[in-house]
């Protein structure tokens, strides 16, 4: 195995150990529950995303706009008995000043990577590391992935996430989110 790959082994091992926490649970900073639906979020800083995507094959220069955007790792879980559907295009942030900010869809970033001739393996990893633009959750399903806002709110904000089930459209809100600053 090459020297570089040994470094990847150690990096992944260290990261798995640090990220595991008690009982290998994923640790979320923000959480909201509505009925049987749970939405969670962790702010993501520049350094962590630069590191993650560098390991996937992005250059630091290419990934910079993504790494510098206000971004989060989101998790969503369906603990109920109905199928849920979400579209990232229906989510938005609301600042203290009432300003609404949309989320940037994964395909918009992918278009940027295509123009920048990002290697295919890196683009594939990026695509599947995102919170998908459309999701269907059967009972028991859950998904996690990264996403960014189209612009950075000036301070704390709410994240309004919309989903629908057999009873109609719903909102679940995460309060007091803030972009990471590192």
């Amino acid at each position, binding site marked *: 195995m090459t020297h570089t790959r040994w470094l990847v082994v150690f990096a*992944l091992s260290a990261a*798995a150990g640090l990220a595991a926490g008690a009982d290998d649970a994923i640790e979320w900073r923000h959480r909201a529950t509505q009925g049987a639906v749970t939405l969670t979020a962790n702010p993501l800083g520049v350094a962590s995303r630069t590191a993650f995507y560098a390991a996937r094959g992005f250059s630091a220069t290419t990934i910079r706009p993504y790494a510098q955007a206000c971004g989060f790792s989101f998790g969503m879980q369906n603990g109920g008995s109905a199928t849920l559907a979400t579209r990232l295009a229906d989510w938005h942030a609301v600042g203290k000043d009432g300003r609404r900010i949309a989320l940037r869809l994964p395909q918009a970033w992918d278009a940027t990577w295509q123009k920048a001739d990002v290697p295919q393996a890196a683009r*594939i990893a990026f695509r599947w590391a995102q919170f998908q633009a459309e999701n269907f959750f059967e009972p028991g399903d859950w998904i996690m992935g990264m996403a960014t806002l189209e612009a950075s709110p000036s301070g704390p904000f709410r994240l309004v996430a919309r989903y629908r089930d057999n009873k109609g459209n719903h909102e679940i809100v995460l309060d007091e989110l803030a972009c990471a600053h590192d």
Partner: protein
Amino acid sequence: MTERRRFIFAGAGLALLACAPSLRAQGRGMTAIPVVPPAPTLRLPDSDGKTVDLAQYKGRVVLVNFWATWCPPCRKEFPSLGRVKKLFKPAEFEVLAVNVGEDPDTVFSFAGHTEFPVLFDRDSKAMAAWPVKGLPTTLLIDRQGRIAFRAVGGREFDDPEIVAAIKQLLKS
């Protein structure tokens, strides 16, 4: 960036993706697919470069798991693929772990030697034909080669609910 610095950042990067107050997030069970459609083609190289075809397992129940080493719930559930494999006879059940977009060295660094085939969908083209909307996604294929159950998000595959679903398919 020097290799040493890249190593430090890579480790910190993955850790920072999942740092905060602890909450368990692991799904339970798999959802039955009412239409039971035929499974798409899945014909990919394994870690030895040998081509493995899902069609060669017709007559057996097959658990097809789409995953990547950088995906935290994929990593968490991976050991349970080996555990569920051991619960059944090789002639009746198999696990196929389809890695998306990565190379064998990277995969081996995480998984080591496995009791089941790890297949490589380097360009994710094979996966495009499957009902996969995120990683991990796992499908249970019945003995007639049809998609019978699906799970999105991490699971423990030796969970009694999933073992019962496999046993149900073995009887049909």
